[in-house]
């Protein structure tokens, strides 16, 4: 029999850390600070190189370049927040770009059916991912890798090169801009805002954090965790489908390798963790991911301006990602002490 009374523990840790300094230490702020720092560094480097850094074109370029990755990374953020991850997005992007371009076949009238078909197929793939993970209890890594292989096989079997044709009107999505802001960036911003809204203002969002934070706690609190994971995967795949549409509009056709060439699977995961979202789930958010994607894009722009070759880029990216996550990990450790 436990007859001893637990004494009240001092509420020591509760000291208010709401000052500006503390806020700036949150991962989301860190990534944006890093972004500002990188822009400053880039400015100096490019100036030394005799160039001009943030010209109108390079600002447009940064947005254009990051839109597709940004949209995929938003979806990936949802999956990772829920404690899962999705390795099938790259192939799904290829597939949906083809579906879109094939159905459109250059006809304006086919745009809506094509969009509907792309979203339906994406949702279906997400559903399969989610059900394999929750019902068949396959680890997300293997489940989505398996689904990725399945899609790859189908795409490679059916297509051996770019196919379909996107009508002019739909290509506006990929090329038009309002002042310095491309439509594609607006689309990305739209997806980000929707995801942010979802995460911070809807029950589903709260549940995603709960399931990723601790699945058992979520279950005991009356959350149907399996359902949340399935829905999250559907949303993640829908984002990949939207990215597929965007790429189809940029390329004017569907391409069976557009997703893998872009490395959207691992790169989206990298962008998410760069933005401070914990790979284990339950911690982080969309804002950080946007910062992470922009960071990678600005890095790219600097490399572009300095004409650094792609091998240096890979090395720098690898180092940046590991260091960023190490910094977040240290922060977490210090706080929990």
């Amino acid at each position, binding site marked *: *029999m*436990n*007859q*001893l*009374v*637990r*004494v*009240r*523990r*001092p*509420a*020591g*840790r*509760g000291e208010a*850390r709401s000052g500006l300094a503390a806020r700036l230490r949150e991962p989301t702020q860190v990534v944006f600070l890093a972004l500002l720092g990188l822009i400053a560094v880039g400015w100096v480097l490019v100036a030394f190189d005799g160039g001009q850094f943030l010209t109108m074109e390079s600002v447009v370029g940064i947005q254009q370049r990051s839109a597709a990755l940004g949209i995929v990374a938003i979806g990936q953020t949802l999956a990772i927040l829920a404690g899962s991850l999705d390795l099938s997005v790259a192939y799904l992007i290829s597939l949906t770009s083809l579906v879109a371009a094939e159905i459109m076949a250059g006809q304006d009238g086919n745009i809506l059916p094509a969009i509907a078909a792309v979203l339906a197929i994406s949702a279906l793939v997400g559903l399969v991912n989610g059900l394999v993970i929750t019902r068949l209890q396959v680890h997300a890594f293997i489940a989505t890798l398996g689904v990725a292989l399945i899609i790859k096989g189908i795409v490679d079997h059916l297509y051996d090169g770019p196919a379909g044709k996107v009508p002019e009107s739909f290509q506006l999505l990929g090329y038009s801009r309002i002042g310095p802001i491309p439509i594609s960036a607006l689309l990305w911003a739209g997806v980000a805002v929707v995801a942010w809204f979802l995460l911070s*203002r*809807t*029950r589903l*969002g*709260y*549940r995603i*954090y*709960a399931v990723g*934070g*601790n699945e*058992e*706690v*979520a*279950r*005991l*609190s*009356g*959350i*149907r965790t399996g359902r949340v994971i399935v829905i999250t995967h559907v949303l993640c795949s829908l984002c990949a489908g939207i990215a597929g549409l965007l790429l189809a509009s940029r390329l004017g056709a569907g391409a069976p390798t557009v997703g893998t060439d872009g490395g959207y699977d691992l790169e989206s995961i990298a962008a998410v963790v760069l933005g401070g979202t914990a790979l284990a789930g*339950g*911690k982080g958010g969309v804002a950080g991911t946007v910062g992470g994607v922009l960071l990678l894009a600005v890095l790219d722009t600097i490399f572009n301006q300095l004409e650094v070759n792609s091998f240096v880029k890979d090395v720098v990216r690898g180092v940046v990602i590991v260091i960023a996550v190490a910094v977040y990990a240290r922060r977490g450790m210090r*706080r*929990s002490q």
Partner: protein
Amino acid sequence: MLSMRGIGKSFLGVRVLSGVDLDVTAGEVHAVVGENGAGKSTLMKIICGVHAPDEGSIEIDGRPVSFGHPLDAQRSGIAIIYQEFNLLPERTVAENVFLGREPVRRGLVDRAAMEEATARLLDELGEDSFGPRDPVKRLSVAQQQVVEIVKALSIDARLIVMDEPSAALAEHEVELLYRLIGRLRERGVAVVYISHRLREVFDLADRVTVLKDGSRVTTVPIGEVSSDELIRLMVGRDLGTYFPPRSAGAGEVRLSLRAAGNHKLRDIDLELRAGEIVGIAGLQGSGRSELAKAIFGAEPFTAGEMTPSRPRSVREGVAMGIGLVTEDRKAEGLALRQSVRDNALLVARAVGGAKGRNGVRDLLERVRLSPPRQEQEVRYLSGGNQQKVVLAKWMTMAPRVLLFDEPTRGVDVGAKAAIHDLMRELANDGMAIMMISSELPELIGMSDRIVVLRDGRIAGTLPAGPTEEAIMRLAAGEVA
């Protein structure tokens, strides 16, 4: 309103509950008592849809129900305060309180309403040290317990299960809890109340159900039992008789501490002698486990002296011949998916000792593991047998000092006696033993000397066979 009949449940082949009946009526406070591991929490988890019973039936208002998910129970108006914390450290208090049931307005979560409701509930509990927007990771254990209570209250439930809600609360918070329960009763809400503090049971309950070894002993109105009777019903035998006889006397000093301390402990002076069992008492959070881990080298001392030497790591502790039977077997003691043999040999393998490898079978027999199947995964063993494997693990290296932290928590009576016998046997063989226990009868029955901790310091040392009162007084710091 709630009626359970013949509930039975096994985990991995170990029977935890059998044939339990429980009736709760509206507006009643129904206490459930029993020893550690009697099955109280398991029964509650069945009520709340966490576990499905293997047998038996549950009726609510005369209608049979079967809960496949905690959500189903919630929808039937059942709320629970779990014994283990069920909070998300990264989320705010309000988000935790309304987890899974966030109020929505026009499809969107109504943060304001959520925070307001949380603030109101915190107010009712007289809690003003934190607010609805504080992240849970910044709260103390007591504050987290308050959040758990608020979480259960926020469900407008007809039946609230409280599994040791007061364990981490301070006196005035317990008072508030009493008042709250009184109000619930007036509203016709039924409360199932689990506590190890019999005073609370007598203060609050209308009826009490006693569980022992997974079966119901009896259910009686609280007026018809005395405190002593209740204890007898729970324990089922006369206390004190089954503890092995104490040893004749202590031998050489195996380990001594002088003014030792670390971030949690201060000025610890302690000697452990061969052949002696030293009991460590103290309130939850007084630093007992810390003391064991510090001596062992897992959270080393940073100040003071320790002879023969001060270990800076687990390996140094082990090399000095110190072993630690941790308080949480599953999280800290065993690799559950490995075999009995591999677990028993873990220490020997980790430190490269050749001792005991061939004698694993003998060792397992010595710790009375029954039956000693070496290739079985330990997760299939009962709690008592698992604890015996942990013991065997340390015995492979023939330690000079063995530290036990809650060695019989969640262990059934038979295994408990076996462990007690074994501890005494080891002491008689010349080992120095330190034993932490929250069960005072056990501590009193086993120890040759009891050291009481309070707030990380030694509050006093008592000779063999003190009264529970004497220990409590030292532990709580009431000046005599």
